[in-house]
């Protein structure tokens, strides 16, 4: 059993890293996972998260568009870069999200500033 104090120290390190960059750090933990990015033009792009930057621009590999009949624009595109500003939602794999850690970091994020 890890004493509470130790857990805290570990957690503190993570928070230091994430200060002001919570979602950037969060998305970095999801690299390699499959996500669905829903854009503000209603297109849904599914792919494996390759990388993310501080603007939350997203690079996906193994891309497919949810409705290729309607949007043949992305045929034969296996890799794509999505500008962060056009993202509406990102559907995440539940099992790879540590919601407890997220909540703790979110509470702290705003405190640190």
């Amino acid at each position, binding site marked *: 059993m890890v004493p509470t104090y130790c857990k805290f120290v570990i957690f503190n390190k993570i928070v230091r890293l994430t200060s002001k960059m919570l979602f950037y750090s969060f998305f970095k933990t999801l690299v390699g996972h499959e996500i669905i990015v829903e854009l503000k033009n209603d297109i849904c792009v599914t792919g494996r998260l390759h990388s993310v930057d501080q603007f939350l621009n997203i690079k996906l590999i193994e891309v497919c568009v949810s409705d290729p009949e309607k949007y043949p624009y992305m045929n034969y595109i296996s890799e794509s870069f999505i500008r962060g500003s056009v993202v509406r939602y990102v559907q*995440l*794999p*539940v099992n790879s999200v540590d919601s407890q850690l*997220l*909540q703790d970091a*979110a509470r702290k994020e705003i405190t640190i500033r």
Partner: protein
Amino acid sequence: MVTKMPEGEAEPVSLVTIKEPVDLIRLSVDERIYVKMRHDRELRGRLHAFDQHLNMVLGEAEETITTIEVDEETFEEVYKTTKRTIPMLFVRGDGVILVSPPSTTS
């Protein structure tokens, strides 16, 4: 009571003073909240994380999209809603209009 807190620890919720709007949202972490979005979308879900842009991660997020259809004969406006549930959802803050804490969330 704990007298010494490790450096950087968040204050206990009961002691948090609300100085600015985001402090109110911080109190809603791990609670089910209501989010009104642009373009007639609404979300209800458990708030796991947020930042100063109101980017958020919601768990068990239920999205409601409301569209208005005009009946061609009677010209009556019919409100149609479509719902879907997404187990874990990142929401980009630029689409958020308002966030409402759990006490007012049905």
